[in-house]
């Protein structure tokens, strides 16, 4: 046998890489360009044309780009390097690069960075602290330069100073920073203040400062002239990977850092011993902001790249300006001074409402006084109202109808004050005396409007079960708000029902009320009234989820007798819900349910199919694009316990917000405008390159096509990562993968995810977690709920559910009524269940143990209508059981798994991957891949009831990979795709003589290659490869 690895590169053209999503390993801002190292691919975005991707090409065959620099001279050359590879490209001739030409070069050592010294000299620093001097035109070697200190470097940079000095800053693996001079080859400083490895070190262009960061989680700033430590920055929660200098303004030096804790941070040095943390950008998923760069002078932005494969731009124009023009603050004293009003000792601002057409803010004090702020002139005035407003003191609730310049307020007893505004003043006001609450206290005032119908609704909720809910409808008549009708609604017969939000559906004339304890009441306003003249409650749906208060309801779509709405719950849950009126009843169906982990949710809306949520997290108010997993903005306001108002201006720009709040008796008005929100069509903007999970992907599964529609050009895709996240998305015909939801149902690291049908999928994890997901594709984007969850066997579960398999059970109409399900565990346990879809119940049919070793995978086999389960385990064995009777009987008693009918060793150690191919009725081909690098084709033949099975090895490839085989996916009946952590994806064919042959092998850019699946689009097959990132390849 040959010495050489025969399966490292074979007929590579049979695999065509389509898309890659993975770590952003380098970023550089140069002029208006953002240059990104996206693994081995170089991408260039142009900030002057909406961050358009103007160049994208894989430059290196295997290595990732870790370093980028640009020559400042006339011929703007880009130097890129990573691993042992480097290349030079001309920025002005990008189109001319011949796609077939290899421009990759290599040095026999790890390259840390490079810099053009001049037109004819390129300096390349290696991890041995050696500079290679190279001619960038001819690639001739000129000389090696070193300072006699050849320690191994984690990081380093070359600074050619404004005065022509060339300084090398070298960050070693053992806590030291070496600063040396290129010309004299002398070490200037050995800075040893850090503990642990140095991950970043830079010198500023004027050579006044040195900055470094390390394993000790600190940033250190040194005086370049003396080597003296000036200041230290603490704040990063884990390792810091990258540092940059910003411009120095008025003696204040700014620094920029990115780190493992998923944040980018801005720091300030103005002479103190510790660096001041100015701003934190928490912007990537999972772990690691690997790369970043900043231009706070001309572009006024910074850019970050994460392990999640996303490239995100951050607006610095607001963060760096000294006067923040978009926030205004007002104290009671300010108001008193401007208006001459006198306030009582404990008088406070209680309520505020905005009238944007007049650009005024109306406030109500705790003594019932009303003032307005002209937001253009920033002038306060006291409203002189024709009617006394004193009744609103102590309690008053106030709301505005922005489109009609009207404000309504209610007193404690339910009297309503209606005010119309002109300019900064009330033009008309009048009181509507309460007739219905009979002295009971008002709990809430909720409003809604329908401009098309010129109808404005005001709901008064009173907690007394004897009082009805009062719904008043107003119309705007020649600039005056006039009461047009009053409806009394039957109280939901539940003492705990407290209305917190409402929505009126115009198509059906339904009123939807949200309450505490996640309960929803629905009224048909056209329905008959009861004997008291109250509109009957249509239906109440109680406790739709665990949690407390429903903070918002809003209609997504409506048609006759069917509405779909979005509901948010304060504890972070959000749901998409269908209510239909069928057979004389309202029926509610939750079609999407998820919980965000960012804090409290106070409301949400859908913009361009993206779900935007807002609420509070510790002392912050945030606005978050849940679909894109990106914080749009935040405001340090002190936390949730305060008066606040969140306003949107749909007609101007859906992502211009205003957040008004009171902190320490001061009124703050904060306007958010998103400079980049139109970028790349992302709601909330700022993402110029999409990505995937921020941690290793453990498993991937592609859905079947719709049975009715095989020409469908997309499939659903689910990915599960080691950090508990399951993602649902779509893979397109062209290999592009789009993500819709990050599902947070798991709390421990995932093992497997699998589609059972187009509608049902499941995932398993440690902690004995098993979730069954149900997907709804009736809208523009797929929606998903956790349909059922397996109860752990103990209160303190520590088992991992390693794998599972299912056989769907259909009724005569082809509807799924249940699943026969098998789950296998890390303690060798095997359980077979029947899951009943209508009851959402798991009935245990069979339970048993294999040995004591960890089971790695399980598959069902069906032969002659008998059902078998087959497992693969860490001991290298395949075992098979007949469970036919247990399943058909489906009795209430649970059977015990007997002895396996087959137990046979195939591999030396763990069987990591198993693929079953049903050859003929009674014959299966089994392809197994192991930790032992071997790939085995076995034949499983069912002989007869008496003689049972025969398992024979047909083909044994001992060296099928140079490392663990991690997954096997079916390409067709005789071709399989095999992944291994050696980062080679191979295609093996089962030949006529039942031997395995490697017919294609190609390097993948996905490290920690761990899982795969194949999407079949008619004649086209796309393999999806997961690990540290996600790739799609066409298999030819």
């Amino acid at each position, binding site marked *: 046998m040959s010495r050489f690895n025969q*399966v490292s590169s074979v007929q590579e053209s049979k695999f065509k890489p389509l898309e890659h999503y993975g770590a952003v390993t380098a970023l550089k801002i140069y002029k208006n360009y953002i240059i990104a190292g996206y693994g081995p691919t170089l991408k260039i975005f142009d900030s002057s044309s909406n961050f358009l991707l103007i160049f994208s090409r894989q430059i290196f065959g*295997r290595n*990732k780009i870790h370093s980028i620099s640009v020559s400042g001279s006339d011929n703007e050359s880009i130097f890129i390097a990573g691993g042992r590879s480097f290349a030079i490209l001309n920025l002005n001739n990008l189109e001319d690069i011949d796609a077939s030409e290899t421009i990759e070069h290599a040095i026999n050592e790890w390259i840390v960075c490079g810099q053009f010294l001049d037109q004819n000299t390129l300096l390349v620093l290696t991890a041995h602290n050696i500079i290679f001097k190279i001619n960038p035109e001819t690639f*001739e070697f000129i000389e090696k330069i070193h300072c006699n200190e050849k320690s*191994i470097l984690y990081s380093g940079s070359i600074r050619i100073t404004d005065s022509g000095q060339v300084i090398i800053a070298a960050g070693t693996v053992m806590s030291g920073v070496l600063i040396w001079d290129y010309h004299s080859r002398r070490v200037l400083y050995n800075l040893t203040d850090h503990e642990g490895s140095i991950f970043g070190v830079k010198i500023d262009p004027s050579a006044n400062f040195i900055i470094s960061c390390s394993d000790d989680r600190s940033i250190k700033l040194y005086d370049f002239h003396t080597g003296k430590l000036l200041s230290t920055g603490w*704040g990063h929660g884990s390792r810091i990977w990258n540092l940059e200098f910003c411009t120095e303004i008025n003696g204040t030096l700014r620094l920029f850092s990115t780190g493992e804790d998923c944040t980018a941070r801005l720091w300030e040095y103005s002479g103190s011993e510790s660096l001041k943390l100015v701003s934190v950008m928490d912007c990537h998923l999972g772990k690691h902001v690997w790369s970043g760069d900043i231009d706070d002078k001309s572009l006024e932005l910074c850019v970050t790249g994460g392990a999640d494969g996303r490239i995100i731009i951050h607006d610095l124009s607001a963060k760096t300006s000294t006067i923040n023009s978009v926030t205004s603050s007002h104290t009671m004293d300010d108001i008193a001074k401007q208006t001459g009003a006198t306030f009582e000792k404990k008088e406070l601002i209680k309520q505020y409402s905005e009238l944007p057409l007049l650009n005024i803010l109306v406030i109500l004090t705790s003594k019932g006084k009303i003032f307005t702020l002209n937001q253009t002139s920033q002038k306060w005035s006291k409203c002189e109202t024709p009617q006394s407003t004193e009744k609103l003191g102590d309690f008053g609730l106030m709301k505005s109808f922005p489109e009609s310049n009207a404000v309504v307020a209610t007193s404690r007893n339910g009297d309503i004050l209606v005010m119309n505004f002109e300019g900064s003043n009330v033009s008309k006001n009048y009181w509507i005396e309460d007739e219905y609450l009979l002295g009971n206290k008002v709990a809430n005032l909720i409003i809604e409007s329908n401009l098309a119908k010129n109808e404005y609704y005001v709901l008064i909720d009173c907690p007394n079960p004897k009082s009805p809910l009062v719904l008043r409808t107003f119309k705007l008549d020649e600039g005056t708000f006039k009461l047009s009708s009053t409806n009394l609604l039957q109280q939901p017969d539940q003492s705990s029902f407290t209305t917190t939000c409402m929505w009126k559906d115009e198509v059906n004339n339904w009123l939807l009320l949200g309450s505490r304890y996640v309960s929803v009441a629905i009224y048909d306003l056209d329905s008959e009234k009861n004997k008291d003249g109250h509109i009957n409650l249509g239906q109440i749906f109680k406790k739709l989820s665990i949690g407390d208060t429903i903070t918002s309801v809003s209609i997504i779509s409506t048609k006759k007798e069917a509405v779909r709405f979005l509901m948010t719950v304060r504890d972070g849950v959000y749901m998409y819900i269908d209510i239909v009126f069928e057979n004389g009843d309202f029926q509610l169906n939750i079609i999407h349910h998820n919980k965000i982990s960012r804090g409290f949710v106070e409301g949400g809306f859908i913009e361009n199919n993206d779900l935007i949520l807002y609420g509070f997290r510790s002392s912050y108010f945030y606005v978050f694009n849940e679909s894109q997993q990106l914080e749009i903005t935040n405001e340090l306001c002190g936390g949730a316990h305060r008066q606040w108002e969140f306003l949107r201006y749909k007609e101007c720009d859906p992502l211009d917000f205003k957040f008004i709040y009171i902190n320490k008796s001061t009124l703050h008005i904060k306007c958010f405008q998103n400079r980049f929100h139109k970028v790349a069509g992302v709601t909330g903007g700022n993402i110029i390159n999409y990505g995937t999970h921020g941690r290793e992907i453990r498993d991937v599964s592609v859905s079947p096509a719709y049975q009715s529609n095989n020409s469908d050009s997309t499939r659903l895709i689910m990915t599960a990562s080691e950090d508990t996240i399951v993602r649902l998305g779509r893979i397109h015909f062209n290999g592009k993968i789009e993500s819709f939801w990050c599902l947070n149902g798991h709390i421990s690291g995932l093992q497997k995810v699998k589609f059972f049908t187009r509608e049902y999928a499941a995932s398993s994890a440690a902690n004995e977690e098993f979730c069954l997901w149900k997907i709804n594709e009736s809208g523009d984007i797929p929606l998903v709920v956790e349909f059922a969850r397996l109860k752990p066997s103990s209160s303190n579960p*520590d088992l991992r559910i390693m794998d599972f398999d299912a056989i769907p059970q259909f009724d005569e109409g082809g509807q799924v009524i249940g699943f026969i399900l098998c789950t296998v565990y890390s303690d060798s346990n095997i359980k077979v269940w029947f899951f009943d879809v209508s009851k959402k119940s798991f009935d245990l049919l069979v339970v048993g143990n294999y040995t004591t070793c960890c089971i790695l995978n399980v598959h069902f086999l069906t032969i002659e209508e008998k059902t078998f389960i087959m497992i693969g385990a860490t001991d290298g064995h395949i075992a098979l059981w007949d469970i036919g009777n247990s399943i058909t009987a489906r009795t209430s008693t649970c059977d015990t798994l007997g002895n396996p009918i087959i137990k046979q060793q195939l591999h030396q150690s763990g069987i990591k991957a198993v693929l079953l191919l049903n050859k003929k009725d009674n014959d299966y081909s089994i392809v197994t891949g192991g930790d032992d690098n071997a790939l085995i084709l076995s034949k499983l033949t069912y002989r007869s009831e008496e003689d049972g099975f025969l398992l024979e090895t047909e083909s044994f490839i001992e060296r099928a990979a140079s490392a663990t085989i991690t997954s096997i996916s079916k390409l067709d009946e005789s071709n399989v795709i095999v992944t291994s952590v050696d980062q080679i994806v191979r295609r093996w064919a089962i030949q006529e003589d039942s031997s395995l042959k490697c017919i294609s092998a190609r390097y993948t850019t996905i490290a920690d290659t761990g899982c795969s699946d194949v999407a079949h689009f008619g004649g086209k097959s796309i393999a999806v490869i997961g690990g540290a990132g996600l790739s799609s390849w066409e298999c030819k």
Partner: protein
Amino acid sequence: MGKSSKDKRDLYYRRAKEEGWRARSAFKLLQLNEQFQLFKDVKRVVDLCAAPGSWSQVLSRELYQTQKNSHDEAKIVAVDLQPMTPIDGVTTLQADITHPKTLVKIMDIFGGEPADFVCSDGAPDVTGLHDLDEYLQAQLILSALQLTTCLLKPGGTFVAKIFRGRDIDLLYAQLSYLFDKVVCAKPRSSRGTSLEAFIVCIGYKPREGWTPKLELNKSAEEFFEGANIGRSDNLKFFELPDPEERVIANFIACGDLSDVDSDATYTLDASESRVVLDPVQMPTSPPYKLALEMKRRGDLVRR
């Protein structure tokens, strides 16, 4: 994870504490030995990257207690940059394995005789950038190998921890020039989910016409220049070298199938689980110790 839940998840962890090993990795060397009889006729041993010292413990027990060698007959040298708590019969050197002086010190202890066995269980701190981590691990192995080629007797054995990722076949190819037999061994005590494995290189055969020489300021790449072990050198115009030699080493799973499975979850007896054992050796303080203390004190405000 608390001490007791880790006990349950990882029986080797508990057994290491019961049997007095400083780390569970002791079982890996024991299982490698079961397979390859590594310690047979071995008198002079070097344990590189030895801290906290569990492999040295195994070597000490094997050479002095099992084989009943006197401290004069058998010598064990443990080298690490970190300090190490003393172990019976083991000379600990707090030193850099790439430094020529370290070689001189070891040779002094061995009285000028070559070593019979060199091992290394060292691994760099992982960053999460797989290519960088693999490079650093390869550098560590090359550093160990440099020293090994300077002091191992012909026919001697070298064992080192590897991570099986991309390019591991390059390492196998290079090692197979230096040893009669190169095997990739995976002890059952090493988790199946981990990329960790061990190269067992048996029968050192010095390269003809090449004298290994440790020199200050010489990189591992430069050290092996001229050894002709299939490593590619820089080409004239730094062209991408031709595909390098790659070999897939034999894989051998070590330890008995009836041994504890490091991937399985075990149910401890009620009496067992009640006794929570302390680790034999407390972990050394990490570089970010101060940052952790500051966090605990609340000095690291998020913004």
